């Protein structure tokens, strides 16, 4: 049995080596079913923005810093969109307990984001998200090029600097 473990380890390492060597060109959004606010299913591989940058933000109605972040961005979002064409996709990880509060909160706050719910954490797991808030940046080619965990007041300015670079076709590595 020990041999199998060793075999698997070697196998995993070889995959990792090749995958990481190619990292730049294949970090795409994984295809997972999430829910729209009207309850119907949506596959995350369909998250698109016409070759412009996308921000994917994981949040929850019970997460105070998450809400601070998205509420702060709301005030800047119109300008951001105008300048770069960026789209923000907010993924709520609320489960059955709080799911029904997502649409009223989003509408109540007047968010203009594209919002989906990931009630059993499938998308969260597929992207390796540990805690919320967690933000990803996707470039015009659909590659995930940056991520950030947690939120501090002012992080949104850093985020927008990166979005601007992406929209100008610059690398942010």
């Amino acid at each position, binding site marked *: 049995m020990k041999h199998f473990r060793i075999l698997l380890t070697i196998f995993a390492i070889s995959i990792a080596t090749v995958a990481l060597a190619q990292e730049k060109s294949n970090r795409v959004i994984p295809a997972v079913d999430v829910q729209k*606010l009207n309850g119907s299913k949506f596959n995350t591989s369909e998250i698109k923005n016409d070759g412009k940058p996308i921000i994917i933000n994981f949040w929850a109605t019970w997460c105070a810093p998450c809400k601070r972040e998205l509420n702060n961005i709301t005030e800047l979002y119109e300008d951001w969109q105008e300048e770069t064409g960026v789209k923000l996709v907010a993924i709520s990880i609320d489960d059955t307990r709080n799911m029904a509060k997502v649409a009223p909160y989003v509408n109540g706050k007047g968010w203009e984001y594209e919002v989906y719910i990931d009630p059993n954490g499938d998308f969260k797991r597929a992207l390796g998200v540990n805690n919320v808030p967690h933000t990803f940046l996707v470039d015009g080619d659909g590659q995930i090029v940056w991520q950030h965990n947690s939120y501090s007041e002012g992080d949104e300015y850093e985020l927008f600097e990166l979005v601007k670079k992406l929209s100008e076709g610059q690398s942010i590595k």
Partner: protein
Amino acid sequence: MRIQIRNFSKLSCLLIGVLFGFNSLTGQSFQETLSKGQIRGNFQFDAQYYQEDTLIGAQDVPEKILSNGFLNLVYTNGNFSTGVRYESYLNALLGFPPGYQGSGITYRFASYTQDKLSITVGNFYEQFGNGLIFRTYEERGLGYDNVMDGVRLKYDLAKGVKLTGVIGKQRLFFEYGDGIVRGLDVDITLNDLFSKYSESKTRVIVGFSGISKYQQDLNSQLVLPENVGSFAGRININRGYFNFNGEYAYKYNDPSADNGFIYKPGEAIFLQTSYSRKGFGLVLAAKRNDNMSFRSDRTAGQQDLLINFIPALTKQHTYNLLATLYPYATQLNGEIAFQADLIYKFKKGTLLGGKRGMDILLNIATANNLDTTQLNDDATSRQGYESKYFSLGEVFFKDFNVQLNKKFSKKVTGRFTYANLVYNQDVIEGKPGAPIIYADVGIADVTYKFAQKKSLRTEAQVLLTKQDQGDWVTLLLEYSYAPHWFFAFLDQYNFGNPDPNLRVHYYNASMGYVDGGNRISLSYGRQRAGIFCVGGVCRVVPASNGLYLSVTSSF
């Protein structure tokens, strides 16, 4: 443990087989196939150095240092995906279930999607409907993980019709539980199935599911059902800003340690409706669950081997005193709960809205016992009790809370909360004879921005009660320098404790550094005993004193 390793080796063969097989079929080189793959994952490590502190009841820890850690690795290549998780508890942090001890691979899976069929073998998380009869999920921070180990099939039967079938055993720390869980779910989007409604503004989704469990009967006194079935039906109706979601679940007789081995069937109903438009949102919800504890081992307790998930219908608070002193978790044996949640935004330029607008959040929640009559039929039919459907029993929990959010200027933002709680400690914490706690809580949360990326957030919280440990006050100062640094100082003071010797301060200082997907934080000081909850699950954490290190990373 042995079973697990055996499966693991089989799985590794399977993985290699699948990849090489896949390869030879398409005629690509192995290298080329692999180069399309991507690896993702995350890592977390928490360690605490403990100091004895008799004043707050922090016990001496023989190991001095305890730690929890895990690493998740997921490999995806086109329609193929596989992953493992390694977990380590050396030994588990205080407050974690004692079953977590040692290290090992606790999660591994392989999945493949071919046209309309999707196959997963190994471990998987799945939820049917609202979870009333089936939900496996994880809350790593609480040590909650009832993941399945077995096979899952998903099939798109027709446009708008999805079938999901599962079979497996559930995780119990480093092993698997006794019982076998199997089930089927059908999810039908009527607008997709019937093309003439495809353009209809009203969208209707219905679902039906069944779950059964098998566990051998080794009881010498009672004849226990070895197979226990349950089913549920649900509907979601959406039209524009309006949404209704309802589910009913029924479970056949399932004598267990939870219900005192009675043969009464269980049932649950869960209803939620919401209406929202720009600047306004309202949710009304009701729930009744009666004898709906459902585990794959009838003798299990705590949070072990739960097959289903009955959500608590109360607000999930985040402020320290509100969230960890008297939080509520669903009483699985029976409760009736209601909740109303309102959000309203006063527009800019109105009397209350002022120059920058203001919003108000109002939430009212109640949970009561069922109104039951004991039958005292232990020696005959063992139905246990009868419950009246629409009648309320003793109060378990009440929460009235209101929150105002206001931006005063470009630099100052405030959030003010008031809450009134009624908390049945006797039932919720299992402390017989403890009085019902009535508490008033006030919180002011003010953020001051010095510069675009520098800010100071202060929280002043007070909780007043005549019961339990009496009054508390909390002060938090948090300075953040985006995007990398934060520093915080926290003091919680139990100034109203009935015992003057226990009127202690819980000082805690912390700092952290964040860089992209990595986060490191360090804190030193006292941690109050409390109940930490995520989702519907709570964990009691004892008081401690010492140095705490936490490292998280996503890649």
